[in-house]
């Protein structure tokens, strides 16, 4: 085979058996294929074995354009934390794939409207990763950056852009970590990549700005309320969940109403909220990551609990069936003994609802009563994901050791809703 001595970005002349092709080479995801962009703009692949000869006509020149960050004196200031995900990825012309936006100026190029409305006084990019790769360490880092911004007297609110997959975990974590919150903290995302004219990022970010400048001192997710590009919902950070793999209105309030309907230029509040106030926001990000979230299913072997025990886990949230049940009468598997063993060895076992909607109630059936008496903490209408984050947060506080049950059942930030509206 002929030696292929060109790089992605080079303009190359290829000789094939029946024709010659002149084209810009792109990075190919398939090592057997040279991917090229023809002059017409179309990309095609050339199987490497078909190349008889090739000559580089023009080497790739990295024409880095200096983008200027617009300074918007006189406009209200916000803090912006960019962490990755679709909302902060652009198309890379060399690879033909998507790559993260790397600096503020690039962000400004893609979202000029944000910089027209506000002065981004502080912008931080602590990391650029997809949200499914985040862990509690990332939540803590985001919280630290947010706290610093929140305590800048000029900054009216903080916007965090984030991948949508696990955004509701981060929202929960920030709800617990940022104590005595005095200003809005708004998390937003996109489901459609920002290269498209139809991207949902535009409206989400526009409404996020409105919310960040509002009077609502809460941790919120702001995103499309429905399939229309009309308004967004502001959703309480502890009672929200990603409910659709691809639709733009993926985030839904669970067991509560949205905090507000948000348009780029107005807000209609639907629920009570903490009002903006003077003073400093504190950070309390103690977290014990030896916690797990387990989804119960019929026929499940309870020795999974022993595994977590052996691995040194301190707490576990079980997403239970119905009103809060696991198999007690299964002739093969003995959840009763496995649960007792775990609890006896100091494991905190919590129950949340795999139905997602509704409240647990262990008093209705004998199974529930038995589990309740064993010492399992029934977390009412709290979302399993929120419960998982909260358990790590509670167990992270050594001084709460004897108060774990009380703390898990204390309503820190709206994670319980006694009225179960919606």
């Amino acid at each position: 085979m002929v030696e292929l001595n060109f790089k992605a970005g080079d303009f190359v002349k290829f000789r094939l058996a029946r024709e010659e092709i002149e084209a810009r080479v792109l990075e190919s995801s398939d090592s057997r294929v040279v991917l090229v962009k023809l002059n017409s703009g179309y990309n095609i692949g050339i199987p490497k074995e078909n190349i008889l000869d090739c000559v580089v006509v023009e080497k790739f020149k990295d024409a880095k354009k200096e983008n200027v960050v617009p300074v918007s004196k006189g406009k209200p200031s916000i803090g912006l934390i960019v962490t990755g995900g679709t909302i902060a990825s652009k198309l890379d012309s060399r690879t033909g794939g998507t790559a993260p936006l790397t600096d503020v100026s690039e962000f400004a190029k893609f979202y000029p409207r944000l910089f027209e409305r506000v002065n981004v006084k502080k912008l931080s990019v602590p990391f650029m990763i997809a949200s499914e790769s985040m862990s509690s360490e990332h939540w803590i880092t985001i919280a630290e950056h947010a706290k610093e911004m929140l305590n800048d007297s000029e900054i009216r609110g903080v916007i965090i852009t984030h991948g949508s997959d696990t955004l509701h975990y981060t929202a929960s974590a920030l709800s617990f970590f940022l104590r005595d919150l005095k200003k809005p903290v708004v998390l937003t995302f996109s489901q459609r990549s920002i290269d498209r004219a139809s991207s949902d990022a535009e409206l989400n970010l526009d409404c996020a700005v409105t919310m960040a400048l509002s009077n609502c001192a809460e941790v919120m997710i702001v995103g499309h309320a429905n399939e229309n590009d009309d308004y967004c919902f502001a959703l309480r950070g502890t009672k929200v969940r990603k409910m659709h793999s691809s639709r733009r209105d993926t985030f839904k309030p669970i067991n509560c109403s949205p905090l507000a309907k948000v348009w780029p230029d107005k807000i209609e509040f639907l629920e009570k909220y903490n009002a903006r106030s003077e003073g400093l926001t504190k950070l309390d990000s103690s977290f014990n990551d030896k916690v797990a979230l387990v989804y119960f299913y019929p026929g499940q072997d309870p020795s999974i609990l022993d595994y977590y025990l052996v691995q040194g886990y301190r707490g576990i949230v079980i997403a239970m069936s119905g009103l809060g049940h696991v198999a007690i009468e299964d002739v093969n598997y003995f959840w009763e003994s496995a649960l007792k063993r775990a609890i006896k060895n100091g494991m905190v076992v919590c129950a949340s609802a795999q139905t997602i909607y509704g409240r647990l109630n262990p008093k209705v059936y004998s199974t529930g009563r038995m589990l309740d008496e064993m010492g399992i903490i029934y977390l009412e209408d709290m979302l399993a994901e929120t419960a998982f984050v909260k358990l790590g947060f509670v167990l992270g506080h050594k001084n709460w050791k004897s108060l774990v049950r009380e703390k898990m059942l204390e309503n820190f930030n709206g994670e319980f809703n006694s009225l179960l509206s919606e």
Partner: protein
Amino acid sequence: MDYAKLGFKAGLEIHQQLDTPKLFSGAPSFLRSDAPHYTISRRLHAVAGESGAVDEAVSHEAGLGKKFIYEGYRDTVSLVELDEEPAHAVNQEALDTALTVALLLNCEIYPVTQVMRKTVIDGSNTSGFQRTVLIAHDGFLELSSGQKIGIATVCLEEDSARLILREKDKVVYRLDRLGIPLVEIATYPDLKNAEQVKECALKLGEILRVCRVKRGIGTIRQDVNVSIKGHDRVEIKGFQDPKMMIKTIDCEIERQLLDLKNKKKNGEVRNAKEDGTSEFLRPMPGASRMYPETDLNLLRIGLDKINGLKKNLPKLKTDIRDELKKKGLSDEMIGLVLESSEILDEFETLLKVYSLDANLVGKMVTLWRNEFATKMNKTLMEIKEVLSEKVLEKILDNVNSKKIGAGDVKHIMMKILDGEKLENALKVEKVDDNEIEKEIRELIKTKPGLRANAYMGMLMAKFKGRIDANKAMEIIEKFVG
């Protein structure tokens, strides 16, 4: 007009809807006139292309700031059309059809290619782009003069949403058309005059019609690229009627001549009007509006697939006509046999049973069945139920083995329709040749001076199906000079 002197060059670009499910969702692909089940509203915003440049054609499209309303149906519109789900893999039926078109146009197929997004922000695509994939290049077709017209590219792309209403700040589209597969054929600028452009368009139409394409108004769109010496290429879109092509092209040449006189030469996209003139639509689109569909893998088109399609390439009508003529079918019969693919199939199957008389087979599947239907006041369907392909095959089998004569066939068909069993109908009790001769002598004696056909009619009336008509004619001709 002296086209050669003007340095006239033209190429055609044809968009034809395929009759397959939608290209990137597999949803059903038909247009609806019933009330939509729901509407959604969207906005589009400007985006810098992958190189950071905003395409001139894109920025010209006045989609920004407008509200787009999309009408949808719960049972035929998927999340892909709503821009709420990533594209599914290319529909294989559509790909096969487009490849078939490319092969009929003698094109080279790309073994590996990539689905692209072409930025379109007039709202006609919910995503803000049209997905398109280049599948083949460098083919040709032949005009009646023998001149070869080069085919530059064959692409497979998705159709746009259907415009329902356009107001100042609001445009309404219907999603039924969005995503219907289109094959796009672009010729090289090999066309030397307006007449050739028209012939090439008709020829392409003929090729497309033997493939799995939609038929009727709006299912094919023809654009022409025209330039004269010194002027950049101008694309004229939206011909519905090939008859208007020549006039429109001649008008465009006049316009370009005027441009040159005024020291202008810019290429642009224009819209054909009914009177043959055209109006400015937008600047020429550039390559910077194209970027890859990142949600899909590279598209591989294997040799197995291509070879499989090559084996089953549909025949063009002109080719079939020539073949039928070679088999001895009269022009009139060719017309009748080609009326439907069903009849053609039947004809070809039966011809394999008895190939000595194509016209006989042709009459069996066309004329005679129709004739019986009229005579018996029955529908053609009812006739076909009795005189099925199987029955006709049996009859021809008997002709082939000389158990019955070709002249008996019509009578046998009639008898079967009258309720006689197939086996009985096939038993043709032959009248002895001597007896026929005797009868003919008798007829000539009693009614002298008639023509052969008249005697034949009388003979047939007497013996019904018991004589072979050809044989009888032979005998009559011995007596009537």
